[in-house]
């Protein structure tokens, strides 16, 4: 008991006595472990943020009637309806999506022709809040529609000379419809030639209550694979097909995998370099203590006791360096994610364990390893001074 307390005193006194060295070692250990924490937290939250960013490419799944055709291309290329349009039951699809437990953004679409001034206009019924989430690339001149208002694609607007504020009297298959143009949308895609109305308004005008032609889904990449989600949804949606939009889905998966690989390689390189350099520093400070070890041995300390003293010292250094490093690492990670992604990084407790662990490991590797070499020294030689 006495012996143990004596040893503890020895460790603490050794640390306090060589204050400069202790601070130096603490600093480098804290630096290494703050790198672990910061890189870990950043790459973890980056996976999610990049996935979010990739979500801005739009929907990666489509649900449509099995016999429906996907419209050919965009802008101006209209080959007319080659077959009768077919629809999905809105209630059944939304129920199935809710029941599936899949977490995905969705938007419902209904296409139909409306008649205006001797011309047929292709109109799409949508839910505008959903559109704003799933189609973030739409460039809008004017305002998003309120109730009873509509958006016009830029090509359509140019064809009929429409401006925001204009009133439209449209004739649907079952009912007339009055709406006001609130904005003009540019997307560079097929949207440029469409008229966008609130879904219920178009449904009543066309006499297609509770019908939709298409549902677009955005499954968050990185959490679920779009192809797996499609396979899981298909059995729930009888009378519909679920397709993966490969342009978005596959490319996103590849991109995310690459970003993650880059991040982990970078982390590994930095950690190995910083770690070995820190371990080197530690071992330098141990090597200079040959004389101390010699003295201990000469006074009758066994190998184990000497080892224990040094082990205790590096454990203490490692733990405190690790804790300090974790705190610093959280700060760095917060700074990085705030600057780049404008969102706070989650505090992930796992990395506290990781950074303390790495710090302790480096400290022990750097001090106990070289001590094995010191042990082989004869106390007589090391005390003599060389």
């Amino acid at each position, binding site marked *: 008991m006495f012996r143990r307390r004596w040893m503890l005193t020895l460790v603490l006194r050794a640390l306090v006595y060589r204050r400069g060295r202790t601070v130096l070692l603490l600093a480098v250990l804290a630096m290494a472990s703050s790198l672990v924490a910061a890189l870990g937290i950043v790459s973890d939250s980056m996976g999610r943020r990049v996935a979010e960013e990739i979500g801005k490419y739009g929907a990666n799944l489509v649900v449509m009637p099995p016999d429906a055709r996907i419209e050919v291309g965009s802008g101006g290329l209209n080959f007319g309806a080659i077959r009768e349009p077919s629809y999905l039951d809105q209630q059944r699809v939304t129920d199935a999506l809710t029941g599936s437990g899949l977490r995905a953004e969705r938007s419902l679409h209904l296409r139909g022709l409306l008649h205006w001034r001797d011309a047929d206009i292709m109109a799409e019924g949508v839910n505008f809040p959903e559109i704003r989430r799933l189609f973030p690339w739409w460039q809008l001149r004017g305002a998003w529609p309120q109730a009873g208002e509509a958006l016009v694609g830029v090509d359509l607007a140019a064809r009929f000379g429409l401006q925001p504020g204009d009133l439209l009297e449209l004739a649907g298959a079952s009912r007339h419809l009055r709406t006001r143009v609130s904005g003009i949308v540019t997307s560079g895609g097929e949207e440029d030639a469409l008229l966008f109305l609130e879904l219920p308004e178009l449904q009543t005008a066309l006499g297609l209550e509770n019908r939709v032609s298409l549902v677009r889904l955005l499954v968050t990449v990185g959490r679920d694979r779009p192809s797996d989600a499609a396979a899981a949804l298909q059995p729930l949606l009888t009378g519909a097909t679920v397709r993966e939009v*490969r342009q978005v889905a596959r490319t996103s998966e590849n991109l995310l995998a690459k970003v993650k690989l880059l991040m982990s390689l970078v982390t590994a390189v930095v950690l190995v*370099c910083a770690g070995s350099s820190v371990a080197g520093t530690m071992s330098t400070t141990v090597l200079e203590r040959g004389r101390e070890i010699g003295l201990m041995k000469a006074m009758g300390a066994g190998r184990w006791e000497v080892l224990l003293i040094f082990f205790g010292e590096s454990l203490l250094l490692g733990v405190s360096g690790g804790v300090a490093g974790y705190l610093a690492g959280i700060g760095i990670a917060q700074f990085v994610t705030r600057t780049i992604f404008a969102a706070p990084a989650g505090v992930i407790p796992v990395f506290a364990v990781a950074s303390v662990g790495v710090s302790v490991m480096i400290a022990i590797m750097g001090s106990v390893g070289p001590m094995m070499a010191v042990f082989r020294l004869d106390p007589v030689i090391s005390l003599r001074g060389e």
Partner: protein
Amino acid sequence: VLLRIVKNSIRRRPRPLLLVLLSVIMGSSVATAFLGINGDLSRRMSLELRSYGANILVEPIAADQGGLLNAADLPRIKSIFWRHNITGFAPYLFGVADLAAGTKKERGVVTGTWFGRELAVEGEETTIQGVRVIAPWWEIAGRWPETPDEAIVGATLAARLGIGAGAELTATALQESRRFRVVGVVTTGGYEEEQVFAPLATVQSLLRTEGKVSRVLVSALTVPADDFGRKDPATMGRDEYEKWYCTAYVTSVAKNLEEVMAGSRAKPVWQIASAEGGLLRKLNGLMLLLTVLALGASATAVSSSLMASMAQRCPEIALMKAVGADRLQIIAIFMGEILILSAVGGVLGYLVGDRLTLIISRMVFDATIISPFWLFPTAILAALAVAVAGSVVPVRRALAIEPVRVLRG
């Protein structure tokens, strides 16, 4: 004498100096690798993002009235001001035709395009252009068409016609008729699945629109749109317009394309273009911050290991002082040692870092990133600077040593 002391000190005490050397090497290799990757990362990433597909659509001004573009203008796409930013393009010609396979008949869309065609432009390297370049997400069951009478069919259309690779397909439009051998079935999840794709020239003769195309999809490397890039070029003054034209915004590249394709208008595909800008900005920012972090970390590691090795040498310094060395001589000895170490470490670190850059770029991008040449002197200078900065404190401590106290033991 100074030189000899430095030389002997390196030879006699290899171990601590070796550790310092190691950390200098590590530090400068991390720095080299990061700067090397960072320099090329944004280009690599934007090339990577090009696999999302074309970001500019070129179509006839009067698309509604069935206007068409001239196929003869296509090679001029690779001769525009921004030609080096064009990573690929593919022309399309659409037409409705009656398709017949065996007993089944269907009215569908026949599309003529380039699949992967060598394009030689005077004064430029020969490049491969076509769908294979700009749409890497197409999944082909079978193979791509090679001869003029081969075609690939979209998956849903193929299912309705009940055909697969190896089948025969007849397309009839107006008076013309062509037989195609189906060599592949394409899955994309988009409207491509409803079409038959055949070589452009064949479809041109089928539809009797020789030398015409309906639209061109262009994949171009662009810079993210900033506030200036979002301005309407029509409202710009002359100087502003010039600056806008000479920045690779997606809108200015589109304008450039419009000028070479007669009777066309070019529209950015905002789904692709706007998401790309945001993603690129963030990835670049992230990499930059990581580089700063890594550089800072390696600098601390190097200077701390220097400090540790200096602290060890108190008795040596005290002895030197006792035998009459003045401050300058001590500084010269230490600095000499450090300079030699860091020069050697810098060179070795550069070599290691260069390898690291190569390995990382191979693994992540399947491409070789060549570290720019300026990195070599930079790496060595950085190693020197860090080593000298890291040794200021220990050298000053060494100068403050009182020989009497240290030598007493």
